[in-house]
């Protein structure tokens, strides 16, 4: 039986193209066929989770039923009551499967958990977001069918972008005007073609051709200070380029396909290598994830800390929360020393960044600001980010701890 990674090969794109045609004709004539959308969703989900990967398919079905029960149950409960402990308990239950999947390899010698499947984290983010907005009272008309479509929207199921329930529902319930939809088709197709360039040319070059060579060279050049060498530096840049082009390419496919389906899934990258500082970097890199962390962890924790006056100064509150926020993100990537160090690195970087921005604001007259400092800031930020990706890559683990 056929089985594919989403957007993995030409056959997938050929099937995608064919499947889109009836849907696009429908949208051009102002019609959205729920039935057809559901059928192609199921078709592509079976392609991704069926055949040799059927155990993942079963895990996905059970997981979805579980999250529907939790979110639906909470939506019904919230209409009557609003107790804190019930909410926290349900959020913990919603995160539980993901936690098990992330912790299992660390305690079982790298073995993957049976309940895991491709995209479980991205679905968990969507489910938790739905619950939090239900608690806030901003999401009032939770509907099981819409929630299912939101969770199982096949273009974004495996790795995001992470949409929001209310935003998705709005697009899903309406049909764009023909003029608007034509613009979306144009954009969608352009995104998909830029995606080809990113993923199949650039990421292929950096990831498949350059990276393995540099890796071998770096392993041969061990023995110096912390086993560092020029090839390690080369690996750092090649890995960063691969990570960016691979993920940005995938995200462009996902957003492009969504646009063809008349859904404006948010963009995931906005020229991240132009960021003048780390704080701005997180507004441009894996945007839907960092905004999810901003809105559902950072801001909420800050709100809670300030309301209960846990820390004396707002500055301490912000700093402590930066560290917690980024550590959680580190742990989310997986329970290994290098992911957690990566999170800590970015937490500390944000604290330092904020201190610098405050200093600059206070001493505006004495801190120079010109074209050169701007380029220097961009250069410094890009290199700090690449260094953090070297930690993230786990290559240092291979470099230091393998014979």
């Amino acid at each position, binding site marked *: 039986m056929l089985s594919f990674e989403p957007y993995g090969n030409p056959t997938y794109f050929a099937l995608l193209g064919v499947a889109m045609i009836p849907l696009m004709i429908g949208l051009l004539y102002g019609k959205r066929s729920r039935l057809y959308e559901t059928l192609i969703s199921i078709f592509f989900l079976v392609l991704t989770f069926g055949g040799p990967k059927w155990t993942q398919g079963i895990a996905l079905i059970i997981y979805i039923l579980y999250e529907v029960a939790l979110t639906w149950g909470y939506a019904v409960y919230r209409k009557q009551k609003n107790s804190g402990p019930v909410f926290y308990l349900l959020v913990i239950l919603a995160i539980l499967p993901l936690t098990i999947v992330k912790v299992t390899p660390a305690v079982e010698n790298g073995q993957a958990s049976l309940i895991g499947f491709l995209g479980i984290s991205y679905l968990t983010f969507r489910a938790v977001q739905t619950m*939090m*907005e239900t608690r*806030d*009272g*901003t*999401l009032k008309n939770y509907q099981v069918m819409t929630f299912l479509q939101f969770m199982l929207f096949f273009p974004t199921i495996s790795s995001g972008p992470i949409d929001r329930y209310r935003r998705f529902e709005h697009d899903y319930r309406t049909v764009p005007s023909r003029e608007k939809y034509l613009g979306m088709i144009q954009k969608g197709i352009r995104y998909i073609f830029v995606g080809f360039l990113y993923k199949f040319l650039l990421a292929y070059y950096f990831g498949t051709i350059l990276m393995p060579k540099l890796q071998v060279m770096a392993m041969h050049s061990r023995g110096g200070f912390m086993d560092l060498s020029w090839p390690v530096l080369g690996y750092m840049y090649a890995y960063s380029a691969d990570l960016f082009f691979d993920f940005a390419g995938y995200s462009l496919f996902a957003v492009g396909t969504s646009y063809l389906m008349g859904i404006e899934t948010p963009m995931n990258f906005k020229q991240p290598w132009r960021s003048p500082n780390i*704080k701005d970097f997180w507004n441009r890199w894996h945007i839907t994830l960092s905004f999810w962390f*901003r*809105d559902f962890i*950072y*801001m*909420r924790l*800050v*709100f809670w800390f*300030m*309301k209960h006056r846990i820390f004396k100064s*707002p500055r301490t*509150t*912000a700093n402590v*929360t930066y560290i917690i926020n980024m550590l959680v993100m580190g742990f989310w990537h997986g329970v290994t020393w290098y992911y957690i160090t990566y999170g800590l690195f970015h937490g500390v970087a944000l604290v330092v960044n904020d201190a610098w*921005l405050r200093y600059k*604001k206070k001493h505006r007259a004495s801190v120079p600001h010109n074209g050169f400092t701007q380029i220097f800031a961009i250069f410094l930020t890009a290199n700090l980010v690449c260094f953090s990706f070297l930690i993230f890559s786990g290559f240092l683990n291979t470099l230091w701890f393998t014979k």
Partner: protein
Amino acid sequence: MDVKETVLSILSDLTGNDVSGAMDDNLFDSGLLDSMGSVQLLLQLQSQLGVNVPVSEFERSEWDTPNKIIAKVESLA
């Protein structure tokens, strides 16, 4: 004090700048507000004006200039 004056005084406390001369400038782009500042703003609105805004109601693009914030608060007050 009316809503406009109160919002402006909260904003000038938070940003350290008098923003009344730049009512349509984007506070996030200029670096005057960030996530931390947003939360402080919500807490101040609650304590000074009794306006309750849950965090998930805070869609950044709807709160990014002094004028937009005042309009938002007036619609909620």
